[in-house]
């Protein structure tokens, strides 16, 4: 085993080097968020001084955050993001699980075609639907409404596909049949027997949908016109247009936008990775 130990000796510096490269943009952003504009120009990370560790801690400031949440209505954008991402995640997971259950556990005419339709829906590229989708939202009167953002997401094809796989693999048919013989209704079987079994997939899909919606830009950018409806992604970009020189504040806004996601990920790492890799496993 001596050979692999020498290999490890080279491995660690390399991995540490790549880790630093990965972490530097985060560190730089966090430092910039707490600096005034003068210190942004004068110091790379934290301003130097005679405080602890040679850093002028007293020069760090919350001014960027108070300005963002005070004058610039960042709280509203944050609430919009939380609302849109959590509602989309809940609706999409429910609709996905329902559709997946139908395709996995029912024999019916047209099942094969429905499964093909779901697969086909998955590969339709989003940009193709941008222009006609906008025109349709205009005619339906859904432009600049939350409903216009939420309604299209309530039964994502990708979710139906994932839940179908998960239910096929983990929910025994005997269980469902036994419940039917006991006289349980179909909705009750789905809600009290099927859903608990596929809880890992529910967790994973809730999270990838939340993340995807939180980071979505092009959809809300096209749909919303009033600034008070903007989620963080759109709000930050429009902030850049107006306050392009206010670097500290832009970084504070970016930090506010990505911190919740990073915290969520640290808490729920396993589900996250499971959700991301679930799509790559063919079934």
């Amino acid at each position: 085993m001596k050979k692999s130990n020498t290999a490890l000796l080279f491995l660690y510096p390399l991995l540490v080097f790549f880790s630093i490269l990965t972490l530097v943009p985060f560190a730089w952003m966090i430092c910039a968020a707490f600096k005034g504009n003068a210190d942004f120009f004068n110091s790379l990370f934290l301003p130097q001084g005679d405080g602890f560790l040679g850093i002028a801690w007293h020069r760090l400031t919350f001014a960027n955050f108070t300005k963002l949440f005070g004058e610039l209505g960042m709280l509203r954008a944050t609430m919009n993001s939380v609302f849109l991402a959590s509602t989309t995640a809940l609706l999409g997971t429910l609709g996905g699980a329902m559709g997946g259950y139908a395709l996995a556990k029912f024999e019916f005419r047209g099942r094969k075609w429905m499964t093909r339709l779901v697969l086909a829906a998955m590969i339709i590229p989003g940009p193709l639907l941008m222009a006609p989708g906008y025109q349709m939202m205009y005619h339906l009167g859904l432009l600049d409404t939350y409903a216009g953002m939420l309604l299209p997401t309530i039964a994502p094809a990708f979710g139906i596909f994932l839940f179908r796989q998960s239910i096929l693999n983990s929910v025994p048919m005997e269980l469902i049949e036994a419940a039917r013989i006991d006289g349980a209704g179909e909705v009750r079987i789905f809600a009290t027997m099927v859903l608990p079994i596929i809880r890992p997939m529910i967790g994973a899909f809730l999270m990838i949908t939340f993340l995807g919606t939180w980071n979505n830009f092009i959809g809300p950018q096209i749909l919303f016109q009033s600034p008070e409806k903007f989620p963080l992604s759109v709000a930050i970009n429009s902030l850049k247009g107006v306050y392009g020189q206010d670097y500290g504040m832009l970084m504070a806004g970016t930090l506010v936008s990505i911190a919740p996601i990073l915290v969520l990920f640290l808490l729920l790492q396993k589900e996250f990775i499971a959700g991301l890799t679930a799509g790559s496993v063919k079934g």
Partner: protein
Amino acid sequence: MNKGRTPAMTPWIFLIPFLLTFAVFTLYPLTQSFVLSFQQTFGPRSTVPVGFENFRYLFTDPLFWIALKNTVIFTLCSLFVQLPLSLGLALLLNRPELKGRSLFRLIFFAPSLVGLVFVGMIFSLIFEKRTGLLNVALHAIAPAFPLEFPWLQNYVMPALVIAALWLYVGFNMIYFLAALQTVPDELVDAAGIDGAGPWDRFVHVTLPHILPVAGFVVLLSILGSLQLFELPFVLLGGSGPENRGLTLVMYLYNTGFVTGDLGYASAIGWVLALILAGVTIGQRALSRKGEE
């Protein structure tokens, strides 16, 4: 009452949310997109039929060709710079005896959580002249280096590729790592005992094993890169100097939502869709050939 049997309607009731949203928000816009691509529009209201004019104009439109060229170059960079790095990192991390493995994995993966808009934001300031991290750091290492150097004016594509690297290397690494963990150790060890060097072991044992997942990652990476929009849009605040950061989807967006011609935008959308379909069919054929 025949217990234990389900009414034929039940599965359809569970499928109602999908059927309704698919019909209204996917199928109808899809057919409309086809109709629109033969029209010229001024905003969502007024349309004029123009026949094949949109497609004919597309092939002589210099902006379309610039956008296509930029998009293809970016996609090639994703394939030949990003993916090898991802696989390399996965190989480095694929050692059970490595201490702190999950910490490294966590660090490398963390940028994938950051949305493209926010990555564009961070990197637009990193590449900023005078105050950006890159100039300040280079100036500190080599004082001859000018603080004023405007990276985003001179190196549009490299800046885009670097920002995308930061975002995606760890993301793709997760897939490669998951695939590598399914390669049986005995197989690699046996090849080692037979005298195969590390490179031979990788090419003849590991690579064939992870090929299906690698094919999937390659496809995902190409499809994603061809639809690049947010990153340059925020990083450059638009299409960049001389449109060097203009991508196909950005051109579609500008045409449809800045100029207001939803018809021409739809025509661009169909060309993009054809390219994506071609890539997908090509990858499928290749991977089927690989399995034989």
